[in-house]
């Protein structure tokens, strides 16, 4: 399978996301301009121009009408997907690290970094009617996060709770009716870089700097599985059709002391979700992988790396034939 190379970013990719149907692939990068691509042929559809800093997080609503992005320029912006126009701009006190639409896309959440003497905070906003006025509207809920900052976020599929992953490896469930903590676990030793749902949003996979990816039950936060690697894991995703997970990561660019790519281990690695056994690797990036995502049909996946490329891989038939016996 020769991958499609999406060249359009000038700096490291920070996050990639498919829309619900999977025909479009959104990508954000440290170069300030999120892009959107046709996932089928890799053609670039357009860019979202307006941010003044590295874009850390993106999301697209389920109808693919609005696009959300948070950046290091202390803004969180909402865009019209079709035209690429900015329709809402929220100025924050520090960088926006995570953002996500709710299941219904009536609400959205974003979190800010603990930086410049500002605390880490989580904001839940109403995004039913977005216009310029959103910048001075009060959020529905504003939750100060005391302690380690939020580094990744997930919204459940009933608009009732939010799960946050933290800098110290902690995972917390928040009840949105009360704005209080419902549950928390600490199974990771270090920063949680990414969290992604399985197809029915009953389990999620975390990717941590502690070299592991872990599978959790969404309701109880019970640890189900652990996928071990030798390098920090930056992103992990669950296949919607098979019991497979893909994890991507690699040695931090600043920690690479030798020039050889072999030391970095910049491969996408496939694990069996239940057996925790690695069964495949995909090489290609020449820097750490920062974000991976499965196509909603499960027949392809993409990875975005520190090298600035997004690679769209269509699986060969042998991938679908391969089975671990049990």
């Amino acid at each position, binding site marked *: 399978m020769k991958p499609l190379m999406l060249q359009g970013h000038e700096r490291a990719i920070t996050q990639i996301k498919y829309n*619900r*149907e*999977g*025909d479009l692939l959104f990508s954000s990068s440290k170069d300030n301009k999120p892009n959107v691509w*046709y996932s*089928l*042929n890799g*053609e670039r559809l357009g860019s979202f121009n307006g941010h003044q800093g590295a874009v850390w997080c993106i999301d697209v609503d*389920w109808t693919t009408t609005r696009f959300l992005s948070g950046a290091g320029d202390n803004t969180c912006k909402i865009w019209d997907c079709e035209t690429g126009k900015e329709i809402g701009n929220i100025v924050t006190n520090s960088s926006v690290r995570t953002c996500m639409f709710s*299941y*219904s896309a*009536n609400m959205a959440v974003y979190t800010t970094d603990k930086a410049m003497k500002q605390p880490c905070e989580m904001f839940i906003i109403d995004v039913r009617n977005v216009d310029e006025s959103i910048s001075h509207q009060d959020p529905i809920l504003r939750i100060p996060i005391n302690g380690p900052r939020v580094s990744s976020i997930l919204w459940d*599929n*009933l*608009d009732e709770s939010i799960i946050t992953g933290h800098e110290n490896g902690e995972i917390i469930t928040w009840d949105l009716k009360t704005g209080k903590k419902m549950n928390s676990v600490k199974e990771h030793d270090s920063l949680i870089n990414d969290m992604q749902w399985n197809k*029915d*949003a*009953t*389990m999620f996979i975390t990717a941590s700097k502690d070299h592991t990816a872990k599978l959790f*039950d*969404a*309701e109880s936060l*019970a640890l*189900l599985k652990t996928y071990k690697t*030798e390098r920090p894991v930056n992103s992990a995703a669950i296949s919607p059709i098979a019991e497979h997970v893909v994890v991507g990561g690699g*040695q931090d660019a600043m920690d690479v002391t030798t020039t*050889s790519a*072999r*030391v970095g281990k910049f491969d996408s690695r496939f694990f069996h979700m*239940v*057996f925790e056994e690695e069964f495949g690797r995909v090489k290609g990036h020449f820097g750490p992988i920062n974000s991976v995502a499965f196509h*909603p*049909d499960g027949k392809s996946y993409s990875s975005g790396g520190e090298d600035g490329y997004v690679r769209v891989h269509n699986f060969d038939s042998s991938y679908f034939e391969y089975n*671990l*016996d*049990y």
Partner: protein
Amino acid sequence: MAKKKLEDKNSQNGDNTKNEDDSSSNDEEPNFSDPEGFVDDITEEELIGDILKTKPKETDGVESVIVVDGVPVVGPNRIEKLKSVINKIFVKFGSIVNEFYPVDEQGSTKGYIFIEYSSPVHAAEAVKLTSNFKLDKQHTFQVNLFTDFSKYESIPDKWEPPEPQPYQDQNDLHYYLLEPDAYDQFAVVTVQAQFVQIWQNTQPDPTMVEERSSWTQTYVKWSPLGTYLSTFHKLGIALWAGPNFDQYKKFAHAHVQFIDYSPCEKYLVTYSPQGDPYNPDQKKIIIWDIRTGQEKRSFNPEGPSAWPIFRWSHDDKYFARIGNDVLSIYETPSFGLLDKKSIKINGIRDFNWSPTDNVVAYWVAEDKDVPASVTLLEIPNRNETRKKNLFNVADCKIHWQKSGDYLCVKVDRYSKVRKEKNEIKYSGMYCNFEIFHMREKQIPVDSVESKEPIQCFAWEPVGSKFGIIHGESPSINVSFYEVRQGQAPILLKKFDKRACNRLHWSPNGQYIVLAGVGTNGGGSLEFVDTHEFLVMNTTDHFQMSDVEWDPTGRYVVTGVSYWKTKVDTGYWIWSFQGKILKRINLEKFAQLLWRPRPSTLLSEEKQREIKKNLKKYYAQFESKDRMRQSKASKELIEKRAALMDKFNDIRQKRIKQYVENKARRLALRNNVDTDELDADTENVEEEIVEFFIKEEVTIVE
């Protein structure tokens, strides 16, 4: 308690007298006198034990007196002469305040004298250093402290035989050799908490035999036959043996850093280069008897030297070290010099024992008109069996083949030499291999020349081949030669442009691993069958720092040690053909050592017979392997099935909830079903996308 009270009382009594002097401060005076009928039942020992200790003894004042026996008997006319000789020897240890030469009626000395020093320290020093001092051929001093007399006095006249010690079973030290499948053991050390693990290389997965934290403070070492595991501690060396790795012996030698076993495991040499600051008397090198744990002899070598300083003959009978223009050979079990003197060899630079015979090969450097030479010396009769002169020699390396059949001396030679500020600079270097055929009459010597620099040399442990890595980066080549009777070595095969810097022969010969070890090596691995020079596999283990064959030649382990690099430490196990069997990534992995095996007890014929009938056994092993494999895969399948069942159990509940919540999800998304990709059939739009297939440029004129 009573004692304390009384002591208090006593001291108060003492105070009492003082108080009488300034009674103005004390209005009332308690009565301290003993009540009537008081019996003093406390001994003086208890009361003033500390003071009693300092009570003068008979021997007091004579502590600094030494008695010297073995002094020549001289007449009165020569007594002054004797005194001056004796004085010269003993004044070195401190000022002599008194001396006494007992004389008989004729006025001649009695052969013993008394010397008093100003301090007991000097006396002790004198005893230590002049005992067994050889004045001349007939006279050897026996020196004792005068105070020793009381020690020897107290020896009872009647000798009582010592109590027999109860027998302590030391378990079967060689139990690991009884393993029916000949699985070998290996030891793994990690830097983290100094974990030491002992594994058995069972198939398909190794099993752990033992794991202990802080078992050693630095590293571990197996004894040459594999009986003992030695661990390093601040206070010395501990040996562990038997099925439970019980402590077998301890050897106290503070700050020990290096050890060496004699080949038959009879003796252990420990070396503490820094010594012990709290015990400056401790010798730097101690040789121990392993079975009794006794110190046999100790040495204080001057200056730094390459470890092992002492080299053992194959049968533990002799050990030798090199000195300034001498080769000192010691005998066991007496631990004295062989024939009581070192062998004088001018310009000796290096030597090595044959691994199978009591023959020493040494080489001497050039000296003006005398050429350099390599000599074979038989021990103990000191017969020179062969001597070969060499010219233009810069350096020599002595390589014995493991079976002792051949000796190769790698001679680095030069075409020009310059002297620059006391430094000798050689140019136009080339290299000769001098091959000694040990098993032939007169020991003929063949030589091979190489113009290229040599990176590595290695004998096939069994057989007659050797391999060399030669050339300069980037064109590094590997050549294999065979040594034949009465012929110069023949080049068998040359591999051009290989990225390797080390040769690792299988302990049984024939197979070899060409390895690129260390930061420059890149971790390349090439498994070669030297029978037909077939490259069985070419692969790599990035940043690998060690390559270790198991003692049977079936497996190879490559390791990345934490001592060399900090990332991706661990060890990989390969088959001898270069097939990867296991990758074990172990954080802070430092060292892996296979447990050695003693050489086989089977006779040559028996071994040949087994080799001939290998086909017969082959089927047996094959079926055993297959069974093991199928058992393993069956176990794996069962394990997976169990995991799957458990996982599905957990999932069922969640899926049920998910289905129940469908209505609520629909409500949130305007009654559009998005649970499946194709669930919402009404809102499907067809879109046409173009694929970029190829680009053609046509130039229109």
